[in-house]
């Protein structure tokens, strides 16, 4: 079909706008601070086969994984069985998933009795049941300990929400009321996406719409191929390490061998370590999501991030490794920790070839502290805190302090919001001066934030990497300061492990210091 290039552009605008509008519905109407303050959610539009075509300005690791969410779903839930008005919910890792907290709500969009697209809303639920409030359990031996596993089920159909399924979910989570509000917001978001897609089809014609989605994939594919062709052919190796989880608790290796051949690139991650004994395992989808991000940065080009951009890339993971550990492995933290280490490894592999497109190591950890306070009725109030840190320096500028890098882009929760909603006082939130690595250009500084516990007791989970292995410097720049978590109790100060579950007492002071970014280039003297 001959397509008017301007119609393609108009539809592309429409798809992005639809996904952005879905996210807006979520942040404006959701209940959990993690969604409404920190924005730990993403929205996407895919084509009828599940190829991502439109995304919001959300969280790159989600968006990357959502390229697989629908294709994997359709393998177990054939499209032929779906009806107009159906809405599915699921969180299984095997279905293009990442971790159980990220619950996907999916609506097929019908035009003239055919599915033309899917609207996908992904949101990080503050709790999905499981061993520990917040559903992160550092020492989990498998995913069954982590959280409730939801296979694809209909949460709504043309007659509205399926109350039995909603009830089933609500009795298995620790904050049923906010869970219901968040879930209704997700369903509403997919409805918004549907409305916009139907409008686009009405305006341009269904056939033009469908053909345009295919064209968008082709455009990004040719753009990515052109970018790879510009890179010198050859093999590039890079590695970085997780703080622990390797043999004897040693740092766990993440390794990549990149082969550039003509206009195709292979990212072989087989050299990464075996399945680890904590929650830092992850799924092959997350490995692919991380590579998709890194390849986009390597390309140095502005292109639409869609399934077409993935076509020239071959991404290999090894069964039994930390990146393909089997569908029952614990994966809560791998989503935002191990994924980041893949980006680090790719950057290190390419640092001598295209240093001007990259940056030195940044705060490649979500820096999660999750607080849970029991209510009198037995339900829990959850506070999921992420911490920004220093960005790595670049060839022409210093790293930025207190920000998020690469695969994440969630926000802090304001101290005034925390104090009004939880029995916590934020005593300090400062820039951690001098924590960025030295260099011709300095790494950005991390932050310090400290929490005074005012409740009789509070459950705490830490999920923070870069405490042992610091963010790397590039081209002679020095590493940034690693992260640190410490607890002051009755005048005594002790360091806390980055992967732990513990119970805090009244008057405890918990302080997190996030990592500084690596420097770029040799420091002068």
């Amino acid at each position, binding site marked *: 079909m001959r397509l008017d290039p301007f119609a393609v552009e108009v539809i592309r605008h429409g798809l992005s706008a639809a996904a952005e*509008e879905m996210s807006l519905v979520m*942040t*404006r109407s959701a*209940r959990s601070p993690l969604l409404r303050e920190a924005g730990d959610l993403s929205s996407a539009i895919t084509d009828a086969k599940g190829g991502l075509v439109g995304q919001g300005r959300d969280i790159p690791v989600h968006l990357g994984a959502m390229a697989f969410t629908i294709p994997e779903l359709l393998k177990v839930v054939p499209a032929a069985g779906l009806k107009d008005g159906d809405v599915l919910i699921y969180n299984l890792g095997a279905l293009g998933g990442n971790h159980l907290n990220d619950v996907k709500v999916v609506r097929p969009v019908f035009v003239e009795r055919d599915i033309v697209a899917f609207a996908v809303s992904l949101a990080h639920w503050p709790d999905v049941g499981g061993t520990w409030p917040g559903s992160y359990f550092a020492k989990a031996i498998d995913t069954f300990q982590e959280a409730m596993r939801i296979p694809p089920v209909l949460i709504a159909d043309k007659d509205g929400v399926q109350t039995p399924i909603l009830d089933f979910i609500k009795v298995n989570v620790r904050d049923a009321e906010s869970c219901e*509000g968040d879930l209704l917001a997700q369903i509403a978001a997919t409805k918004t996406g549907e409305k916009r897609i139907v409008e686009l089809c009405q305006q341009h014609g269904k056939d033009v719409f469908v053909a345009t989605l295919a064209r968008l994939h082709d455009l990004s594919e040719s753009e990515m191929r052109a970018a790879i062709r510009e890179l010198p052919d050859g093999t590039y190796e890079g590695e970085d390490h997780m703080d622990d989880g390797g043999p004897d608790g040693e740092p766990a290796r993440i390794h990549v061998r990149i082969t550039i051949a003509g206009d195709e690139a292979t990212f072989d991650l087989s050299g990464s370590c075996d399945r680890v004994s904590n929650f830092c395992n992850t799924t092959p989808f997350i490995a692919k999501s991380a590579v998709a991000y890194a390849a986009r940065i390597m390309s140095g080009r502005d292109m639409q991030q869609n399934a077409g951009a993935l076509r020239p890339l071959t991404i290999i993971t090894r069964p039994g490794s930390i990146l393909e550990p089997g569908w029952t492995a614990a994966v809560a933290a791998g989503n935002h920790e191990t994924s980041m280490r893949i980006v680090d490894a790719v950057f290190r592999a390419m640092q001598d070839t295209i240093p001007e497109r990259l940056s030195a190591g940044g705060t490649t950890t979500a820096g999660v502290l999750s607080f849970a306070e029991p209510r009198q009725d037995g339900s829990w109030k959850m506070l999921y805190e992420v911490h920004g840190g220093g960005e790595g320096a670049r060839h022409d500028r210093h790293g930025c302090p207190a*920000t998020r890098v690469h695969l994440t882009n969630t926000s802090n929760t304001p101290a005034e919001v925390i104090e009004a909603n939880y029995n916590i006082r934020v005593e300090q939130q400062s820039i951690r001066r001098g924590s960025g690595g030295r260099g011709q250009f300095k790494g950005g500084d991390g932050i310090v934030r400290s929490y005074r516990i005012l409740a009789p007791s509070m459950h705490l989970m830490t999920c923070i990497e870069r405490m042992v292995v610091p963010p790397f410097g590039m081209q002679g720049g020095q590493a940034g300061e690693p992260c640190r978590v410490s607890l002051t109790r009755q005048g005594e100060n002790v360091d806390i492990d980055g992967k732990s579950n513990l119970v805090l007492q009244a008057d405890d002071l918990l302080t997190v210091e996030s990592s500084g970014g690596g420097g770029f280039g040799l420091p002068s003297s």
Partner: protein
Amino acid sequence: MGTDIGGTFTDIIAIRRDTGQTRIAKVPSRPNAPVQAMLEAIEAVGLQKSDVDKFIHGTTRITNAIVEGRLPKVALIATAGFEDVLEIGRYRRRDLYRLDIPPKAPSLVPAELCFGLKERIDHQGRVIVSLDDAEIDRLLAWLAKTEARSVAIALLHAYANPIHEKMLAERLKEIVPYVSLSQEINPEAREYERTSSTCFNAAAMPIAVEYLSELEEKLPIGHGLQVFHSAGAMIPVSAVKRQPIVMAMSGPAAGVSASVGLARQLEQPRVLTFDMGGTTTDVCLIVDGQPEMTDGRMLGDRPLRQPMLAVHSIGAGGGSIVRNGPGGLTVGPESAGSEPGPACYGRGGRDATITDANALLGYLNPETRLGDRIGIDVGAAARAIEPIAKALNLSLTETALGIIRVANATMARALRRVTVECGIDGRDCTLLAFGGGGPMHAAGLAELYGIAKVVVPAASSAFSALGCLTADFSFLQQQTFRAALDDIDRSGIEARIGQLIAQACAPLLENGIPKNEIGIELVALMRYAAQNDAIPIPFALPIDVERLHHDFLAKHHDLFGYATRERCVIESVRVQARRPSSTAINRPGVPLANASIRSRICSFDDERDVETAIVDRASLAQAVTGPAIIEDAWSTVVVPPQWQASADTSGNLFLSKVRA
């Protein structure tokens, strides 16, 4: 006199009070001598200073100073431990996939000018650590060394209890000329947004006070000297000096205000304003004669939280540069500005702009000159568009039509943004198009978006200036309440609303407006207890709790498609005191500078190279069927094939699609 000071041109409308006689002019803006430019504006309509008893203006002066980073030194006083609040911000980076640009804007106040004050108040307003004199002395010693003349004070939870901020203000008033308190500028929770807003005010204060004082001196007409504020009405210059940041959206607000007047006059229940200028396009939704309001916006990538008109601005206007990049064809935000301007202005611009596409399609009169400065060089437009046409393997005409469609798609996205946020289907709205480019793009945009009715107001090119004359006189106050609806202390809240009403009325009363002419509008900003964003629900005193609850559920359902029976909360209350405008405007005369040719060859989406009637707007008597171009000295209205236009006795044009 109403004056709209834009980035390129200053528009003036003068109206004679007794006869209603109107004069209009357009002069170049003078960013470095704004007061001088205003005095020139008075001369441009053939008047003298002594003829003017009321001078109302909208200005982008404050906004531009902020966006361009030309701001005076500000010191920030924050609670100890939170002095880095601006540098930390909310962490989020601007662009997901670009490492070349810094992820965040640098802090508005550098670290060495931020002071951590030992004090602490909790979220319920209880003093946890009291502020003592020794600490204030330590602060004063530090402040003296900074030599800052403007100070922002933003202490934790000051919205719940301002006692410490007020103590400091008392001590500082003898020492520094400009002090901004977070409790006055933005008494709402979330420390970063409140601090940022307060620092914006502190930075704007020296600029605003200097500028406004000069204006008062040169044009000593007392309360007659007024300025537009972001919430879409006017306020005397004397009242704005303490809170100059209320002028942040002064420019676009004037256009919206004019639209509100016209929407009421024409009895249009839902209006979308479409103000397309040279570098930006502003859109806003007006429902039942009331413009939509919002709680804030980003300015120079930093948050400014203030109740203001919900104007959505996009960086695309007539001068926006068109690029054929790898991600597709894009329009803006890069702009050719006024220098060199679009290629067709013949002043050295080489990049293709939206205006060049309009010129190539024959929409612009080649003989028209704006203030004898600009001609239209269609050949130059063609040369600028040629490389894009070649890359796409299309003719020049097809490429220009395509550029217009992509530009309109960008605009449509802005229209969608302002309507969906209010749960309204934009297709039911009337599109009110003004500014230089609005009337040219209106029909195409309406077609793309599915809008049936378009209005191009009389004096469309100087419409914002007109807004200054017809605006209401109003002032607005907003305060955080956080009252749960199910156990509301009605009498307590009503008493506090009473105080807010008094505060909102004060500037009007001070300006001699009789109390019985002031109307009060109340809006409760409501949300579910666990939600973040509150949605506006109008109400009246005494409070009818059941009605409020019902209205909230209905609105939530409209906006998000669902509603539950969870607990809900009145987050804050907004009070607007308003004295409606009494200025009536007759049909403003818009002289046509050059006698224009009767027809040109133009191209449209449905027809190429078609002979198109050129109609003099001032003499338009009966309905015109497209294709046609309606023009006068400063405006060009495109009537595509299958559209028609007619005028009313006031000179407003109505465009609609002809039913086949």
